């Protein structure tokens, strides 16, 4: 079997070269994702068989099943999926433009900016009895604003006749440390109740997601993913270094800015609704790279699916393993992801 398949339609107005192995992997991941999605929907205090879950999706099943699935489980599962996708794609883009395997949403300070905003929000808008004086609905807005402001700050500080990857990441890590410090400081100064609430947010949780979250998050993440996928060939070229990228006619600085904005928007959206879920943005792209290779056309979809699967499983464990206690999903992303990643590290020789 040939490794690649030409895909050309409309008199070659649309043409792609498809890596068969990568396509197979992506399809397999898609199936795994669907499986996890259905299994997770059926699991909880009330068990629903996979067949019934599918029936419920299409309007069947008992009223009770409809209620549990529609009102409680589906929103948070969809949010987990979207958040995983968003963080993984953002991480993949960042690793591509920064050309450093340690690049991730956290290390550039973007997640940190959101944390500071959230902790600050909790501190500023709480009254004496720790009750919020404004609606909790504003929390995602604060998180998103924090992430965006910090991303712009890092970009602005790194600008000096263009933004070089090494400056971007070093300044990012400086700002990251500062954000972490500020978060700790605010948590220490505030009452312990706020600290623990903030801690849950920082760990990352999709608890309490509702359909209005879904309605905002799904289009946001999906549109940005399409944009990222369209830009994939520009990441490919940036991975070869600035000289080569300029040489083949890519406007390096413009695409670097654009890609950074896309990842910031993805991160901002994800952390706004699920907090600082770690690991996914760092490791999902590495896992994807080991499964489908280095071309971003395949790498982005694969890492998106891995990210989505990871967060869905993490949340499934978080809400069932210690039931009735709810453990934030962020606790388990790394615990289940790291061993698998280490396994991949050994399996592929190209490390």
């Amino acid at each position, binding site marked *: 079997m040939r490794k690649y398949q030409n895909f050309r339609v409309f008199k*070659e107005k*649309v043409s792609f070269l498809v890596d068969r192995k990568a396509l197979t992997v992506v399809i397999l991941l898609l199936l795994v994702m669907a499986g996890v999605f259905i299994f997770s929907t059926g699991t909880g205090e009330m068990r629903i068989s996979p067949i019934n879950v599918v029936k419920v999706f299409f309007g069947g099943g008992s009223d009770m099943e409809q209620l549990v699935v529609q009102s409680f489980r589906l929103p948070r599962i969809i949010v987990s999926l979207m958040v995983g996708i968003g963080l993984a794609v953002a991480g993949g883009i960042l690793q591509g433009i920064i050309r450093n395997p340690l690049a991730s949403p956290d290390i550039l300070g973007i997640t940190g900016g959101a944390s500071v905003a959230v902790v600050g929000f909790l501190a500023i808008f709480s009254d004496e009895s720790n009750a919020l004086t404004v609606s909790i609905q504003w929390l995602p807005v604060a998180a998103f604003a924090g992430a965006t402001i910090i991303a712009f700050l890092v970009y602005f500080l790194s600008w000096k006749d263009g933004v070089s990857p090494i400056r971007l990441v070093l300044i990012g890590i400086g700002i990251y440390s500062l954000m972490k410090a500020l978060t700790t400081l605010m948590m220490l100064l505030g009452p312990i109740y706020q600290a623990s609430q903030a801690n849950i947010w920082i760990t990352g949780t999709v608890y309490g997601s509702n359909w209005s979250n879904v309605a905002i998050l799904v289009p946001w993440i999906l549109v940005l993913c399409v944009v990222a996928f369209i830009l994939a060939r520009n990441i490919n070229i940036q991975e070869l270094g600035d*000289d*080569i990228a300029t040489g*083949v*006619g*890519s406007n390096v600085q413009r695409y670097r800015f654009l890609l950074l904005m896309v990842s910031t928007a993805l991160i901002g959206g994800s952390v706004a609704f699920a907090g600082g879920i770690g690991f996914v943005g760092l490791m999902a792209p590495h896992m994807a790279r080991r499964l489908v*290779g280095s*071309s971003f056309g395949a790498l982005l979809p694969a890492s998106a699916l891995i990210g989505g699967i990871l967060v869905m499983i993490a949340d499934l464990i978080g809400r069932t393993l210690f039931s009735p206690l709810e453990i934030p999903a962020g606790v388990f992303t790394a615990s289940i992801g790291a061993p698998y990643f280490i396994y991949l590290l050994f399996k592929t020789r190209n490390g």
Partner: protein
Amino acid sequence: MNTNQAISTKQLTLSYGDTTIINELDLEIPKGEITVFIGGNGCGKSTLLRSIARLLKPKSGAVLLDGEAIAKLSTKDVARKMAILPQSPSAPEGLTVLQLVKQGRYPYQTWLKQWTSEDEEKVNNALEATGLMKLKDRAVDSLSGGQRQRAWIAMTLAQDTDTILLDEPTTYLDMTHQIEILDLLFELNEKEQRTIVMVLHDLNLACRYAHNVVAIKDQKIYAQGKPEVVINCSLVKNVFEMECEVTVDPLFGTPLCIPYGKGRCILKQERLSRNG
């Protein structure tokens, strides 16, 4: 406007910070020929090449490509006319040869049109010309030095440009592979009349392949022309600060530079002291 020039520079001044590297340079690079920049380490020949390839903004002056100022052209238009291979590029982990070479088609792609039959043909030609067809699914980082350099050259070939710029394409290669790469470039020039501009360290190889050498010294051109005409003892002495004897290559008839200095067997005792 002389259309026999692929590239020319007008009053080009280049600098890193406050250090001037090239000063008010007027250079003309003939079309369809092989031009080689020579000069001592740090004389600015790589800098000049990078600036011609728009990787480095000039402090003043301009680079003209087919008579048009390069700064005014869109970077994609330039990329369809001129390709550049910088010194020791690095590929991401696991990227295959085909994936790398395919990147050369970047200036022709849109996001819906990423693999037309023309793209395929050019990429296959490039793989064929560099003898990499069999290795196209191997990871670039698993190749030997010579193969890796050929893969990068294949990428610039896939760009399908009239002009190719290369910064020391033979560095780190053994003699066999040096000749192999230069023969490949020579053939491209011979068969397809592509303009080749490169920086080479080996003066004898430069003389053997180049139609036109440009010797750079003290921020400007010391001499330019056919190797047989410009390369002689006094040029080598002034440009490289080295005493030598220039004879004729017994196989190719081009200038052959034999540096003075020490050696195991000595035939002409009186002329071998380095300081003349």
